[in-house]
């Protein structure tokens, strides 16, 4: 069954990717392929390079070496940015906030991909309409007076995450990348996020999930990848490892031994 998944070209593939920041190596020789319907759990200690890795594939950072392939085609990295990644169906929920706190929700939903006429003027009414739809479907208004004009700063943490996820869902992503999306969420909100990931893979989309909570990862991921100090030290399928073993493996790496 897995081989049938592997037969299709991966949505996204990294080949020998490396990245340094002013001399400090953040990533070294990373090989990674993500196929439709797959949920990849990316785990590792703080500073292991997880966020750097996903920022490379979402177009924020340019790698120093290696290549990036989408649908089997090499991407011109000099022209690859957030807008290009999004237009090729890669949606990312970054670890840090990507919301403009003082801006209304409708602007936050569409920033970086505004609906415009040919003069670059915003199609405000349409953006607001879509925003309300996203709010209804993914945020759960729960009787609160949230509208498209509400500024983000009045929203709770769970509502913000709902906005970010709703944005990723609405734009029909083929690969959704989530960097520690469950940190600081309540139990119910965590469950919503994990359920959302399960729906993604059921729809044949792919997902990369980063989390420190091995339980969350184990519930949704079909494959685990362990990063340690910029290197991929292990990759294993869910059926080959138990939650306890995965946990033990990570603790061992964190303790310094491989």
């Amino acid at each position: 069954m897995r081989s049938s998944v592997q037969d299709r070209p991966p949505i996204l593939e990294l080949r020998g990717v490396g990245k340094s920041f002013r001399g400090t190596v953040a990533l070294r020789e990373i090989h990674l392929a993500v196929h439709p319907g797959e949920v990849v759990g990316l785990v590792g200690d703080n500073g292991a390079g997880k966020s750097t890795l996903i920022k490379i594939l979402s177009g924020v950072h340019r790698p120093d070496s290696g290549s990036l392939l989408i649908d089997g085609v090499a991407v011109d990295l000099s022209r690859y940015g957030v807008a290009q990644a999004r237009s090729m169906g890669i949606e990312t929920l970054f670890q840090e906030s990507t919301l403009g706190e003082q801006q209304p929700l409708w602007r936050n939903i569409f920033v970086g991909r505004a609906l415009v006429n040919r003069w670059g003027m915003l199609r405000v009414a349409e953006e607001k309409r879509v925003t309300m739809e996203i709010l209804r479907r993914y945020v759960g208004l729960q009787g609160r007076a949230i509208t498209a004009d509400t500024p983000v700063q009045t929203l709770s943490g769970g509502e913000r995450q709902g906005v970010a996820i709703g944005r990723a869902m609405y734009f029909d992503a083929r690969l959704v990348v989530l960097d520690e999306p469950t940190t600081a969420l309540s139990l119910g909100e965590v469950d919503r996020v994990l359920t959302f990931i399960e729906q993604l893979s059921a729809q044949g989309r792919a997902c990369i999930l980063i989390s420190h909570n091995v339980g969350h990862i184990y519930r949704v991921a079909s494959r685990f990848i362990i990063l340690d100090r910029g290197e991929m030290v292990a990759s294993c399928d869910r059926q080959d490892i138990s939650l306890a073993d995965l946990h033990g493996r990570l603790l061992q790496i964190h303790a310094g031994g491989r």
Partner: protein
Amino acid sequence: MGAGILRTYRLQVGITAVLAVLLALFAVLSPQTFLGGRIYLSFLSTIPFIAILALGLTFLVIAGELDMSFPSLMAMAGLLFAEIYLRTASPWLGLFAALAVGGLGGFINGVLVVKVGVPSIIATIGTQFFWRGLSALLASGLARNIAAIRGTDFHQLMVGRVLGIPAQALWFLVLAVFLALLLNRHVFGERVLFTGDNLRAARLNGVDTDRVRLMLFTMMGLLSAFVAVLVCLEMGNWWPTQGEGYLLLVFAAIFIGGTSVFGGRGTLYGTCVGAIIIGIIEAGIISAGFSGFWTRLVHGLIIVVSVSVYATIFRTGRS
């Protein structure tokens, strides 16, 4: 719905009320001046200079940047305009040169901030000295008299009277409408808002914040040069300290208008009303029979009171 709109625009309503109260006060204190039309025509010839500069600077402040150099850039651009007009008798060539140096000066500010990484307040204090010094050096410290330009078509177009109204007020109106659309309804304005709101978040959303800021600094340089040309034409003169008086007035107009110094939020309407308030106070005080020395004091009071109101009621402080 009506209450919602009132809430959204409470800042604009508030600042307009302040202006109305001031005008009413002046009208009571000196009815012969403030109930006639002439004083308003005079306002229409002077306030647009402050207001146009303040429009450009509001964009920068919303993007989280400052520009302290525009008065000096005005001096440089004004000198080029006057000198080229005197030598070639072509005001168009002079205007073009002024805009070119203004745009270049703004762009250099942008490069210093965006590419080199100098905080904008420091970078533009540096360039402020540079342009003031360069213009004084080139002019040998002497003024340029261009009174001969009065009566030309160019003068009429830029600062003449159209149906009795000073042309600079119409230039201001056109620019204000254009810039308001740009900020509130154009995708570029959205990029400006997010750049000032949260630079990192803007970048993660694919906003090229470097480009946005470079463009804003350049736009400020262009507007400064444009106003410098208008001032030269209005006065028939260029002088070495031209522009100096505008620095604090323009900042005052912006902050009276309710734009947040922390970026991400601002109103061009507020800025315009702020510029009017700043622009009418001197005339109001003098025609009420007080000494001109009161002007600064009243400016100071209005600034302190208005920003205090914003900080307490609108919570514009750092949180």
